[in-house]
């Protein structure tokens, strides 16, 4: 038997090169583009239509989310049920969501059913009628969901965090209240639909594994549609943080929800990728400092993460956890200790090396599937980044020193204007 060395890790290779796969960019009509990204092994399709219809575009709270969820609720010729039956029959899924900066309508289907599903999907996107009756049902069910959400510490914490970090008037802090939902009218949805869907299609993206002919079918369908690319002006939004400690009492909770964070930088900032790496080391993965200290050493939580969230009209960096109420003060103190530590001591070389390899490895893993690649492509398009944005991570990570990271920590993890939201028992 070979004498095994179980003590030290076997020789391994580091990742020297990352490549982002080729994709096609096809102009369908005047400035309206279809992006096609092929990857993976299964003959499946995800088709995304991206609209200027997110939180930043709405004129009234809950308008974006309801317009998005009502898209599948009926057209001039098909009821909500007829639409659902037609799409379900081919095993496809129709999903819509309103995000901070846009809204996305997605068709998932097997390639073999594309030509059957696509016309139905397009009909829903271009001929939606927002029936009063369906709106009424959605409002009622949405109010029920809101009641349940308001019982969740994590929901209350998130909502309050965004209100304190961006200011209550900022679109990112718009959480639909009972009144917001009740006040929504069919007319408000139709006007938003006409201005921000019919005249607000930004681009279309198809990902999965498919033949050229499928791209052709999709391109033809869009070409024949009423969609035109028109750039709508977006407003300017002022960020108004309220730094300091904010406590929301929930006397019946056995854990406290906690968010601590501050305004940060967006993807186009020169420091962004390095800061993302610093955040990884601090609280962005299982081997991070926050996890090691607060979960693995002290057992105060099931999980603790720090997140860098770069939206187009404001970015924030925050620490998020549900923590044992009894040791809450200790946990918060430890979080600040970790911030202080990463600002005052250079990160040891071995820790840097681990984080770097982990980061590149996880990128490599995401190359496995077409959809995570499509998500990254969307980031490139939305932020007008170069195609080299992701591959450059290798050289950026290789050239970033501990000293530089420490300087970034001082600059971006500065606790002076920090917002702290705690939801739980006193």
């Amino acid at each position, binding site marked *: 038997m070979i004498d095994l060395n179980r003590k030290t890790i076997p020789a391994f*290779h580091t990742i020297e090169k990352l490549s982002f796969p080729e994709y096609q960019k096809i102009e369908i009509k005047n400035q309206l583009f279809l992006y096609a990204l092929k990857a993976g092994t299964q003959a499946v399709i995800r088709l995304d239509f991206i609209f200027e219809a997110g939180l930043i575009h709405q004129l009234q709270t809950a308008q974006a989310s309801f317009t998005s969820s009502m898209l599948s609720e009926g057209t001039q010729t098909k009821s909500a049920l007829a639409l659902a039956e037609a799409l379900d*029959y081919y095993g496809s899924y129709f999903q819509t969501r309103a995000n901070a900066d846009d809204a996305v309508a997605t068709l998932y289907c097997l390639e073999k059913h594309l030509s059957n599903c696509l016309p139905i999907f397009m009909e829903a996107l271009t001929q939606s009628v927002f029936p009063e009756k369906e709106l009424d049902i959605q409002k009622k069910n949405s109010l029920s969901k809101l*009641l349940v959400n308001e019982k969740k510490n994590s929901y209350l914490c998130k909502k309050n965090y965004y209100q304190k970090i961006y200011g209550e008037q900022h679109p990112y802090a718009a959480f639909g209240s009972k009144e917001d939902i009740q006040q929504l009218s069919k007319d408000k949805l139709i006007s938003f639909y006409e201005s921000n869907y019919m005249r607000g299609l930004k681009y279309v993206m198809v990902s999965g594994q498919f033949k050229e002919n499928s791209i052709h079918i999709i391109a033809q369908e869009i070409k024949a549609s009423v969609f035109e690319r028109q750039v709508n002006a977006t407003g300017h939004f002022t960020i108004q943080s309220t730094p300091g400690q904010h406590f929301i009492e929930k006397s019946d909770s056995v854990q406290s929800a906690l968010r601590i964070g501050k305004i940060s930088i967006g993807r186009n900032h020169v420091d962004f990728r390095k800061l993302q790496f610093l955040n990884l080391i601090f609280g962005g993965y299982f081997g991070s400092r926050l996890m090691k200290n607060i979960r*693995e050493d002290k057992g105060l939580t099931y999980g603790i993460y720090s997140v860098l969230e770069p939206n187009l009209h404001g970015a924030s960096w925050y620490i998020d956890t549900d923590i044992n109420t009894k040791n809450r003060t200790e946990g918060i103190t430890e979080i600040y200790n970790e911030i202080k530590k990463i600002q005052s001591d250079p990160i040891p070389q071995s820790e840097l090396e681990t984080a770097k390899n982990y980061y590149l490895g996880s990128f490599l893993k995401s190359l496995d599937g077409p959809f995570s690649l499509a998500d990254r492509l969307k980031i490139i398009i939305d932020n007008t980044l170069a195609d080299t944005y992701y591959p450059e991570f290798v050289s950026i990570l290789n050239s970033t020193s501990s000293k530089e990271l420490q300087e970034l920590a001082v600059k971006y993890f500065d606790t002076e204007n920090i917002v702290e939201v705690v939801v739980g028992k006193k």
Partner: protein
Amino acid sequence: MLLPNGKVRFKPYNSHFALQTAGGESNAFTSNDITNYYVTLPANNIETGFWLESDRMLSLDFSEKSLSVQRNVVIEEFKERYLNQPYGDVWLRILPLAYKEHPYNWATIGKEISHIEQADLDQVKSFFFNFYAPNNAILVVAGNISLEETKRLCEKWFEPIPRRNTQINAYPQEPKQTEARKEHVYSDVPLNMIVKAYHMGGRLDTDYYACDLLSDILGGGKSAKFYNKLVKEKRLFSELDTYISGDADPGLFLIEGKLSKGVSFETAESAILEELELFKSELVSEKELTKVINKTETNIQFGDISLLNRAMKLAFAAFLGDINLANTEIDHYLAVNPETLQKVAKNMLVEENCSTLYYHAK
């Protein structure tokens, strides 16, 4: 079993750290049937995965400090998932109602926090040495690696681990339920909720696939019967879902719904029962059957995009003793016909086979 759950687990931190240095990630979960450790890493570093997992099988870092920290972590997990969420304890309530003999009456994390608090090092050790044995494990390697290289690495890292005298007692099977079971719970939640759990066959039971399709026909999405009749038309529920537990041994077919404000349990439940009776009285159309089979095919194909998913599917098929199941799943669904669906519904969806939980908003 000494420890009724495999949830008290150790993460040997140093080797975990080393795995990340090789660009890898690892995690684990415990279901009713298995504990699954998994590692993903760049193909040319696969040996690091063998090194980590074989070491984990050989022994663990059994220290009091490590146990005490992990105990606290799992207690926080218990609170986060089951206690600090509205309706979080539904699963903890429904399992012991539906199962009187079979160990599925335990949630994998334990029935209550004291079970986690009382887990001691001896229990953990004996559980580990009994169950985490090479003769009680299935290894799946998936990715850009040859069979020869896989064999070489298996022989190098796993062969030296001696087989253990694993004792797994036959689990008591659940006797046939003969009368309706009902339980009322009162909690600080905003809406009443009803859960109906029916016993169904196990993963290898011939009717398993029919049950799965049945749950899609009744409750899967916006064209499903329940959604259209009970959520939209009658507006009795704000949400109503059906799903199966998918366990290896006989599992559960569940109907779970939140009642609209002002609707009584009696009205809501009789509307469900009425739909079930209607369903049992007529055959499903070919069109509807094709629809749910097409949906299932989409789910399988989309699931197979991920290499990790494919590896896990293979592992579970091997665990069930029919490795080919990973390839033939869709054929089993295609073999279901309207008569089978009707027969299954008639046998299964009866009150004597059902445990009902009435979750009252206080």
